[in-house]
């Protein structure tokens, strides 16, 4: 490693070259952080939706959900992962891999956050939507999946994106269980090179970069869900559907509206 030469005076020297030299380790750390976060995001979305529905439902259960949400929203990720990795091993003799422990720790916290996001999104759907479904004779489950959920998803999406960014950053605390994420990799490199300023700045740059990209992706997703006249992008993406409907229109006989049976 070329940087070893600069060891004696390292503290006073900025050697940005070491970032490039160790890029694959740093990027692997980032990949691990993204993997843990992504798996946890999927789990949290399912659990969070379940929690939101229970929270909005009948009394004793809704209280339990409310308590869960309010407790876990306040727990730091560091504590959560220590509970899961060390606590569960001690108390229940369950041991997880560091990856699993990270996923579970994040899911415990973020299902609580996402529950609140989904709850307010579901509450934002006008009452008339569900009533229209009921009046048409649709079953409540069908109303949920075909009418309420798609509309709520669109409302919730920007906040879900923010949660995902938060999750990626929270993986930095998992260095405590030895997960080889960005901070752990950085610490290892610092121990070798004594370049904390350079390396931590590089680590921060990676987080910022990821936040930027994720924000872009979620905005894109939001816009594809947007219906015209707002979503110019969605109009393009819906081309196939539009053509299908146009074919139907063309196939219909051009009869005057009123008298046909």
């Amino acid at each position: 490693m070329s940087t070893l030469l600069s060891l004696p005076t390292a503290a006073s020297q900025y050697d940005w070259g070491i970032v490039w030299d160790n890029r694959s380790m740093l990027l692997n750390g980032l990949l691990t952080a993204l993997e843990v976060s992504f798996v946890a995001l999927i789990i949290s979305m399912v659990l969070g939706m379940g929690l939101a529905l229970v929270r909005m439902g009948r009394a004793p259960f809704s209280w339990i959900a409310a308590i869960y949400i309010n407790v876990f929203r306040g727990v730091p990720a560091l504590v959560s992962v220590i509970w899961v990795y060390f606590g569960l091993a001690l108390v229940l003799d369950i041991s997880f891999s560091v990856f699993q422990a990270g996923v579970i720790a994040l899911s415990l916290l973020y299902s609580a956050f996402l529950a609140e996001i989904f709850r307010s999104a579901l509450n934002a759907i006008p009452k008339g939507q569900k009533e229209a479904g009921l009046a048409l004779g649709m079953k409540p489950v069908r109303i949920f999946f075909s009418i309420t959920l798609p509309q709520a998803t669109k409302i919730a999406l920007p906040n879900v994106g923010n949660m995902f960014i938060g999750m990626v950053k929270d993986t930095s605390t998992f260095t405590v269980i030895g997960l080889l994420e960005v901070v752990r990799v950085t610490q290892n490199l610092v121990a070798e090179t004594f370049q904390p300023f350079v390396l931590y700045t590089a680590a921060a740059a990676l987080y910022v970069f990821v936040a930027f990209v994720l924000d872009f992706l979620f905005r894109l997703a939001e816009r594809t869900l947007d219906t015209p006249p707002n979503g110019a992008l969605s109009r393009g993406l819906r081309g196939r559907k539009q053509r299908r409907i146009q074919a139907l229109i063309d196939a219909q006989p051009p009869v005057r509206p009123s008298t046909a049976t």
Partner: protein
Amino acid sequence: MRAATTVPPTQHDSPESAGAPAHRPSGPPVVELRQIRKSFGDLEVLKGIDLQVHKGEHVVVFGPSGSGKSTVLRSINLLEPPTSGSLKVAGVEYGPGLPGEGDVKKGKPLDLRRSVGMVFQSFNLFPHLTALENVCLPLRSVRGVKRDEAEQRSADALRRVGLLPRAAHFPGQLSGGQQQRVAIARALTLDPEVLLFDEPTSALDPELVGEVLSTMREVAELGMTMVIVTHELGFAREIGDLNVFMEDGVVVETGPRGFFDECHNPRTQKFISAVL
């Protein structure tokens, strides 16, 4: 607006005898309300409503705001289940029933709603779906019609309300009048026994009212059984086979065609002259 003296002895019911029609279609009614009461907490909103709607009949319900018109419609499809009283649709009991009639077998709300259509004041189209999909969704999920056939039938329904060229548009791209016509098509495609309209033109700009009323006229001409809550008394006068004036949760007066010129009750007369 005074009682004509030469009318045949059509029944103008007083509140006490409301719901005892004289010259009305025979046969079992499609919708029958007997002594329907509804309370929200301590507030009694419906104080014993009687109403019969026969096949092919066009019933107009009117009266001041807050008198309980919407609640009557919403109790017919159980969006607001009655607190007490009997609600029968197509001969099946869905309400709590009347005391003294014993245990009647009750129908399921889902089955009731599948034979009663409703058009709302605020349209309530599904904003994330195209006009065609709005009509298609209930056809597929309620009637279980296959996709291709459902789309064909939806396109046909949109053609009938004159909106086939807008089939691929989303509700946000349609005017209020067009949205309401899609909503009518959506309800019609399910072939309901009776179609309820709750102030279908009240949310519309004045210039858009006409197109919705003419769509409703066409639906009426097809023989659809309709119950219409409306403030458009001109339209009501023209379409109403049975006219029901409500105030404070009771039916004040009912009458047949010509009712608007012949009503007896001073409260009805006062309301009509204020609106017309």
